[in-house]
């Protein structure tokens, strides 16, 4: 604990994070949210500021593997964390990853504002071995708002991405069991 005093209200502090595999240390205001730290300080601009209340999901990132609203977490709270954002879903050579490709192929983005959050909500599901059904995709994505697509193409894209990921992971991840679970 340090001594109180109005002079250091809002003082800056150094926060270190690994963002999409890249270690980043930046000094910023202690009151900065993770979203503001990523966008305005670290230059990682794919998460978007939508509502500021945790409703719209456009700022969704993964912190140590769990989906969070980056606008509702202080950067200082997650100092040292591994953060994943939508731009980190690409392949090592920079081409689109399976989720990104599925969104592209299924026209799951229109204006694109919700897309980085949708991708990370979907990425959290896939990393968790889900979804088990189309209904589960719809249920999980209720925390991410899209005002363009009507959601159908997004749900299609997540299903397609899951099939692609399972097909790529070979005989240990057969599509058959996913179909059976439906």
């Amino acid at each position: 604990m340090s001594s109180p005093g109005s002079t250091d209200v809002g003082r800056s502090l150094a926060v270190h994070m690994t963002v999409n595999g890249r270690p980043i240390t930046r000094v910023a205001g202690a009151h900065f949210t993770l979203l503001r730290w990523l966008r305005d300080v670290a230059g990682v601009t794919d998460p978007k500021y939508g509502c500021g209340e945790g409703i719209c999901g456009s700022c969704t990132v993964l912190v140590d593997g769990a989906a969070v609203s980056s606008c509702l977490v202080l950067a200082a709270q997650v100092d040292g964390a591994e953060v994943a954002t939508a731009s980190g879903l690409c392949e090592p050579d920079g081409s689109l990853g399976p989720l990104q490709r599925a969104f592209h192929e299924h026209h799951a983005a229109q204006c694109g504002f919700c897309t980085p959050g949708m991708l990370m909500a979907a990425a959290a599901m896939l990393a968790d071995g889900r979804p088990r059904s189309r209904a589960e995709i719809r249920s999980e994505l209720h925390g991410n708002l899209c005002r363009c697509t009507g959601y159908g193409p997004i749900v299609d894209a997540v299903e397609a991405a899951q099939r692609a990921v399972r097909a790529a992971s070979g005989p240990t991840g057969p599509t058959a069991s996913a179909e059976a679970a439906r």
Partner: protein
Amino acid sequence: MFTRPFRYERAERLAEASDLLRRYGEDAKVIAGGQSLMPLINLGLAAPHVVIDISRADQDGGPRTIGSDNGYLTIGTLVTHSRLAADQVAARMQPLLGAAAARIGNSRVRNRGTLGGSLAHSDPAAELPLAMVALGAEYEVSNGEQARYIRAEEFHLGFLTTPLEADELIISARVPSLGPGWGWAFQEFSRRDGDFALAAAAALVRSSGGAIVESRVAVGGVNDRPVRLADIEIALTGATTEEAADRFGAIRGIDPVSDTGASAAYRAHLAQVLVKRTVIEACQRSEAAHV
């Protein structure tokens, strides 16, 4: 998003947070998951001078554990809603609680939001305060020097209002386990999935030989706090599952608000429907428990 700057203090232990609260007084706010405080800060509705972070306190300690203690389920204040919803001990000892936790907000809210944060925030439409009142839980609160227990019904005093002293934090909740033969149910209704409930209900029923012997029923979202419905509990005694829904009419003792979300009359109607549905569901679980 461009919040007023504040001083950030990280407490390594909950007791240290109480020290900091004594030092900074009313200018300070405690943050754990931040799922209630950060929206208020982002929208400019709260502008604390000091934010005391307990989210990393007691890394391996009691505030993060879910355990069983002499027939009680104990849940540490920093347990997230996601963990509570998925926890096997909690599911075995008091399944209603995990079911209530699973209905909170969306997965992002559940991944960060904590038990103590939700209870101390005391939103009248929140799931966990309602579940705790229905279950007859009590909260351990402490200022780092002295601990005391407060019953859930005496803790949720009104809209965002609790008897917590300025330097006190919730440490844990103590929840009686589901007794043999009891059934449970938790239901809520909101305009959109993940939105605040317009009304919610929790019911616990113990039936024997097809008739209700005892019950505990509570509603949320319709008053400035979750309320237990003693009249309905009395009316239900002796009813069969088929009769249960007809044993009471409009719910007395509630005072719903009219706002842009719903009219008071609609909230009262929802409360009645949800109480009937939860009582029936709890009856069915109670009867299944006898088989």
